[in-house]
């Protein structure tokens, strides 16, 4: 029972950290010299960017692991990680637009990172759409793993092609490039979002595993060897 509640604890910890980090960033940390309070969106924007990349990297790992092992737990995790990655990327685009309007004067700009994120939303969102239109679980799992690997390999090419094409975005913000006073809220929020999404992925992959179990009849070959509860993913990824 303790392991069943671990994802929920992760989500709760993530929310608490995110609230604490955002409070620190909004109320305690000093304002930025040039941009003023608008800059405070950095405390969620930059950690969202890190974590969106991380979630999609995890989706790629799941896709490779599924193709190598044919184990259903990786398919469930792939579905969860892709969904969370797409939501984080979508959030990233939205936050970027909110920040860009007062700073650059436009909602959207064709800068490499912004454009690449938008392309990622469509590329991985398309794979999620593909999953909903395939009824055979084996085909769905193999195809979405293949499509995920292809889309992931495409990300750096998209990034560099857009970079050659046009550029305006400021350099990445990391703890090294921002003033010391901004470090802590950034770090706290980064871990907050990290715990939040890993918890959500664990919960979502459990739902995916339950749906798989209801779809597959006769039972999976793995299930005939061991008790189902021991095979299907229950814990954190």
């Amino acid at each position, binding site marked *: 029972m303790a392991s069943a509640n671990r994802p929920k604890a992760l989500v709760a910890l993530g929310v608490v950290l995110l609230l604490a980090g955002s409070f620190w960033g909004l109320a305690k940390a000093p304002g930025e010299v040039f941009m003023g309070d608008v800059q405070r969106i950095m405390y969620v924007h930059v950690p969202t960017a890190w974590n969106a990349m991380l979630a999609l990297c995890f989706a790629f790992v799941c896709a490779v692991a599924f*193709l190598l092992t044919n184990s259903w737990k990786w398919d469930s995790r792939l579905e969860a990680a892709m969904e969370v990655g797409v939501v984080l990327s979508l959030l990233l685009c939205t936050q970027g637009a909110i920040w860009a309007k007062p700073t650059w004067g436009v909602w959207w700009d064709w800068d490499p990172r912004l454009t690449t994120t938008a*392309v*990622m939303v*469509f*590329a991985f969102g*398309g*794979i999620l*759409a*593909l999953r909903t*239109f*395939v009824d055979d679980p084996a*085909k769905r799992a*193999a*195809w979405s*793993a*293949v*499509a995920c*690997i*292809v*889309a992931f*390999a*495409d990300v750096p*090419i*998209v990034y*560099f*092609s*857009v970079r*050659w*094409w046009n550029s305006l975005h400021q350099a990445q913000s990391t703890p090294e490039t921002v003033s010391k006073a901004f470090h802590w809220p950034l770090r706290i929020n980064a871990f907050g979002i990290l715990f939040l999404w890993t918890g959500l992925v664990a919960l979502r992959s459990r739902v995916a595993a339950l749906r798989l179990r209801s779809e597959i009849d006769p039972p999976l070959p793995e299930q005939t060897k061991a008790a189902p509860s021991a095979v299907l993913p229950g814990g954190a990824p």
Partner: protein
Amino acid sequence: MTGLAAALRKDLLLQWRSRAQLVAIFAFGAAALLLFSFAIGPDSVALRQHSAGFLWLALLLASTLSLAESFEREMEEHALEGLLLLPASARALYYGKAMANWAQLALLGVALVPVAVVLYDAGTVRLVALLGVILLGTAGLSAPGTLYAAMTAQTRARQTLLPLLLFPLVVPVLLAAVKATSLLILGDPMEQLRPWALLLALFDVVHWSLGGLLFGRVVEE
């Protein structure tokens, strides 16, 4: 190697026998080229400036039709299952199909150039370079397009899914091919053609390798 040759021969023969389809897809691409001008207005200078983009968008839109068609034929009478029973590897089937699709798309691209020249004054004297860009660009459309068409042909919402999956993926092809073609049409004082062609070549290498590597998992039963 004989498997690849046989697969390529089969796909080229299929395309030759359904050449009426190719003419219809060409007409679609030409109609798309005509329509783009209405978005800009009858400003011949602006139209010429954007002609490379129009050409590649028309080709991209037309490619979804021809790529989807190439696998829908294999779904009739369970032809794909029959093919997989033959002593040829899935990889040979993929490369045969992708090369045939490449040939068809390149032909389509070459055929659309005169239309763009007539409509938008998009001529160039560097014909060999233009052919090279069309070959590199259509190779980039055909490798992931063939892989995805194999999936979407077997799903319910195939007309929607293929463009949905393919368009975000081929953003680099579109960017690089439009830039390169545009340099050929409008002049290239800074010698920028080579890096864009290299980017296309890199995309092609990555996706032709990935396609051959992963296709087996797409068609397995």
